[in-house]
């Protein structure tokens, strides 16, 4: 009787031995993603604060000083330097010493007192779009606010009061936004990479061929390889979540069990992808290159950094082929939005389907090299 899973347990036993023997490499493999998490967790802050600002105040009276104080108090601008000429103002921006230059003309106070429109020039370095956007918005906001204050009679209420409330991440903390998505990328390094290497190593040694003259069948071999790394991937996930929750204080709004359950299909896809890569390459260095074919899209197309809604249509559709897209949705859903299985089961289903498909494809590619059993 043909057993398509032949050799599964034996291979799993052997992989466990390999892992135990090479435990140093394994520990390093586990620590590196955590170090990356720490760097990004501490290092990345997408909130724009303390933008270096240079000021040319030609008015130098109460009104202009008030206005500058309000800018400084906004926390967005850091009034770094006061200059005396237009030329110095421009130089400060061109040299990169300041991102924003503010010029207050000499008649600023006079015009305000006479009830005429007073102008302020805000020059913004456009080379970083998020800094520029934030600087412009805040400058406009303060100007508008100041105008309203002068237009409205004392005690008169604002006609419209817009109140925005930031759900799920009220403090706009960057770690809350980045770390759940980052999990998807970090897990790849202990799953896709490690399985691909472990199979390609057998190709290089010639043991793969040896296995195929035994009753070991492709599916048995691949699953025997996948299961130990699934356990490792799972362990890594727990480490990441622990670090996220208790070092970076990212609150987990949803059910942890839901997250742990929905992580299985993602790890499975990532592992199946590793096995698939291993069927297309002959050496570990080649495997490394191919593994990056999934690593890079997982960063850029999954929505982890760039919102998928802003992508050109072709990349948007492409992002549906990237497993990390679905997992980023799962992690953000559970951790930030408190979503449950009811909302996320489709993501899990897609990932499972992808994983099974890839694994069968990988097994078929192996099979073609030996006689079908």
């Amino acid at each position, binding site marked *: *009787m043909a057993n398509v899973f032949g050799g599964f347990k034996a291979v799993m036993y052997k992989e466990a031995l390999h892992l135990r023997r090479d435990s140093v490499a394994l520990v390093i493999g586990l620590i590196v993603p955590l170090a990356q998490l720490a760097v990004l967790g501490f290092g990345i802050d997408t909130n724009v604060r303390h933008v270096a600002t240079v000021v040319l105040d030609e008015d130098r009276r109460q009104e202009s000083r008030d206005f500058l104080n309000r800018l400084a108090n906004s926390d967005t601008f850091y009034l770094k330097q006061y200059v005396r000429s237009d030329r110095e103002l421009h130089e400060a921006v061109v040299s990169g010493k300041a991102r924003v230059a503010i010029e207050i003309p000499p008649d600023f106070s006079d015009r305000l007192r006479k009830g005429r429109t007073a102008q302020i020039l805000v020059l913004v370095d456009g080379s970083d779009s998020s800094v520029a956007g934030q600087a412009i918005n805040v400058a406009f906001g303060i100007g508008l606010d100041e105008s309203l204050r002068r237009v409205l009679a004392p005690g008169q209420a604002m006609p419209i009061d817009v109140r925005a409330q930031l759900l799920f991440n009220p403090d706009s903390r960057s770690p809350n936004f980045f770390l759940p998505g980052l999990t998807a990328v970090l897990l790849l390094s202990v799953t896709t990479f490690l399985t691909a290497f472990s199979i390609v190593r057998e190709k290089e040694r010639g043991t793969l*061929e040896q296995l195929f003259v*035994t009753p070991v069948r492709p599916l048995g071999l691949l699953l025997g390889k996948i299961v130990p790394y699934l356990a490792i991937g799972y362990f890594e996930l727990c480490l990441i979540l622990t670090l996220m929750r208790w070092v970076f204080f990212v609150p987990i709004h949803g059910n942890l069990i839901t997250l742990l359950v929905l992580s299985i299909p993602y790890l499975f896809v990532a592992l199946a992808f590793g096995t698939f890569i291993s069927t297309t390459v002959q050496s570990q260095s080649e495997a490394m290159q191919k593994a990056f074919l999934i690593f890079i899209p997982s960063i850029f197309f999954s929505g982890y950094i760039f919102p998928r809604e802003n992508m050109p249509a072709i990349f948007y559709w492409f992002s549906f082929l990237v497993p990390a897209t679905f997992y980023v949705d799962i992690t953000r859903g559970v951790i930030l939005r408190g979503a449950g299985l009811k909302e996320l089961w489709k993501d899990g289903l897609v990932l499972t389907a992808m994983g099974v498909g890839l694994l069968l494809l990988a097994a078929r590619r192996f099979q073609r090299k*030996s006689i079908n059993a």
Partner: protein
Amino acid sequence: MSAAIETREVTKRFGALTAVNEVSIRVEQGDVFGFLGPNGSGKTTLIKMLTGLLPVTSGEAFVDGLNVMSDPEQVRRRIGYMSQQFSLYTDLTVLENLRFYGRVYGLRNQELRERIGAVLAINHLEPYRDVLSARLSGGWKQRLALGCALLHEPRILFLDEPTAGIDPVARRELWDLLFDLSSRGITFFVTTHYMDEAERCNRLAYIYNSRLIAFGSPGEIKKLKEVNPAGARRVEITCSDLMRALRTTAQIDGVRSATAFGQNLHALADDALSDGALIAALEAHGLPGASVRTISPTLEDAFVAITNQHRAALETFGG
């Protein structure tokens, strides 16, 4: 009793390239069968077809009476295979390698322990059981690989150049072991480049340019008429300047071919050319003091003669 291995015009093509061309062989149970041929002649490809690693393009191949194409699962349980590179897990110990291969064949607990004990004993690997296989020398690696291939008590063992890169003592010991095992009924299919190993086989096949060109016991092959053409005899020439002698001997009238053989030359000379005439001719070419004696062909002489004839035929008929 069916043959241990039988092929009928078995052929393997990779696109336009024919790696094995209509090869028919028969290996009896308990034989130590030597499979010879130059590198790239198709030896490994034939082994891969017989072990189920490559599908057969045309023809039929049977191992232990089972068709390798239609019954690969059963074939795999009855054969062992040791490839050129020994295929061990070098980061595992001797015992762990054996346990893994045993489990692959479904051996468990008591049975696994017994088989491992037996294999360790046969191969004298007992003192090394907890040594990482990376630390073993070539000869011991080969014994371990053989041990792994023997665990499930295969009826037929395929060994692809088992002695390449092994020291002479280990080589001899391996062959003693093969004969010991063959006396217990295991059939061996061994590829080799060593003539002394070929000489020890019960039966040989010689493959050249994808085709089987000689088949039989070493004695039968040495007696082939291609090896002993009518009207000629094989002589051994001993003289001082071997390389010079090799160049000039072939030019002497009545000498059909000459090959260096250790410190001597082996030449195929017409019967009409007497030993004395040959010595005189050598002296005329500046090689005095040569001695000549008639010999029966060695296995190497036989293969060189057969190969040369096929090469000449290929050149005549344009491949």
